[in-house]
């Protein structure tokens, strides 16, 4: 177990040596992730752990990957996708070009789910899906569009629950233990690293999804990220958060109206 003081040291090392600022992440969570990695990698002492992090850039990659949480799914929370499908896409359809931002997209399952929705609504050809994450290795995976075959049963069930009518397996080709999603789904995706803590707005969107990322941030950082989203969202655009996240306590909330009380989707009204 790592002490609070040691957590502070690692946080300042990350900032000082690599420019990664994790100081405003939820502290209990960060501490747990660091302790977990420390014992997983069997360092004989904290000093060696710290030395490795400070001096080995390869290890930094692993460190960032392990202290952030990357778990994701296709059509995660199917009812959320159902609302996108039945209520939001028809609004987006009125735009000549639909710009969507997936902030913290991890390995891309969410982005492929969105591409499937758009393609079924015959909107994919006029959409752009910006998929960003702090972690280049998850983006690398996302851009390949190759996922484990073992997950497909679950994803197919999620897809059907989200209102999908096709045969889910028609979207990919299976090979050994993996499946590769069809190239046409990928055509409108743009992958780029973007750090929500330190990077700025880079475009205006009609829909921003940032799901299951903000739970790892403290209130101060959440507030900062909300104003970044507010700045990057067109008037009447939509902001979608994870099932346990809310805009309610943020200062921008007065400019937003929750689309439905069940799903975490807000519309910018001014």
């Amino acid at each position: 177990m790592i002490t609070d003081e040691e957590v502070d040291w690692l946080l300042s090392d990350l900032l000082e040596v690599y420019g990664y600022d994790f100081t405003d992440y939820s502290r209990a969570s960060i501490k747990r992730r660091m302790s977990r990695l420390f014992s997983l990698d069997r360092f004989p002492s904290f000093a060696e752990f710290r030395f490795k992090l400070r001096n080995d850039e390869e290890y930094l990659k692993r460190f960032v990957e392990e202290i952030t949480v990357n778990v994701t799914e296709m059509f995660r929370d199917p009812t959320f996708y159902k609302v996108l499908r039945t209520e939001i896409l028809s609004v987006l359809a009125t735009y000549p070009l639909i710009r969507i931002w997936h902030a913290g997209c991890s390995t891309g399952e969410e982005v492929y789910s969105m591409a499937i929705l758009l393609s079924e609504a015959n909107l994919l050809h006029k959409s752009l899906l910006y998929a960003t994450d702090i972690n280049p290795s998850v983006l690398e995976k996302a851009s390949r569009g190759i996922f484990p075959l073992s997950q497909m049963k679950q994803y197919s069930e999620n897809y059907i629950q989200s209102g999908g009518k096709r045969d889910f397996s028609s979207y990919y080709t299976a090979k050994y233990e993996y499946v590769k999603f069809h190239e046409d789904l990928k055509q409108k995706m743009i992958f780029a690293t973007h750090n929500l803590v330190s990077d700025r707005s880079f475009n205006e969107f009609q829909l921003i999804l940032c799901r299951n990322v903000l739970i790892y941030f403290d209130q101060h950082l959440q507030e900062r990220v909300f104003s970044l989203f507010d700045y990057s969202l067109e008037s009447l655009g939509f902001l979608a958060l994870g099932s346990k996240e809310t805009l309610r306590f943020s200062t921008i909330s007065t400019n937003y109206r929750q689309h439905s009380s069940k799903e975490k989707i807000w519309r910018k009204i001014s």
Partner: protein
Amino acid sequence: MAENILSKKYKLVVIGGSAGSMEVILGILAELKRTLTLAIVIVLHRKKNGESLLVDLFSSRTSLVVKEAEEKEKILPGHIYVAPADYHLLIEKDFTFSLDFSEKVHYSRPSIDVTFETAVDAYGESLICILLSGANADGALGVKKAKEAKGLTMVQNPEDAEVSYMPAQAIAIAQVDLIVNGAEMGAIINNLSIQ
């Protein structure tokens, strides 16, 4: 029961339960007095869905406020918080909750150990950890850490538990303060409250 153990310095009770603990929890809730000054957090292993049902079920047994714990929410005295299904529930040093959707711990999410351990960090000796019936080793390590931090640890008597494994694990690795039957726990909690 040494006098100092049963002093009134406590602020938070975390109750961890798995298989066979539901009835015990309902029993505890029914006993709790209206004026309770302790906050209570319940971490219960269960299937993915149905958390709102759990809040409703718990609410039906007590007049205290029962709600699902929300991320960044401040922990208030006299409130009962339920860990949401499929997330780990962490407690921050500023007495707020964080949620975390990372790997399962002891095949469980929410994991009792995760909540116990972060609660120890935040509350130290003003924490009460209670571990109930279950078929899993989750919670034992958390009880040990709570004890080391001079919190109060209370475990269901394995002979009284529907599934003895979980409380027995805790007793095996930690010097548990109180080993009691489920039916006695509500009254003990009431006595540890300031009012």
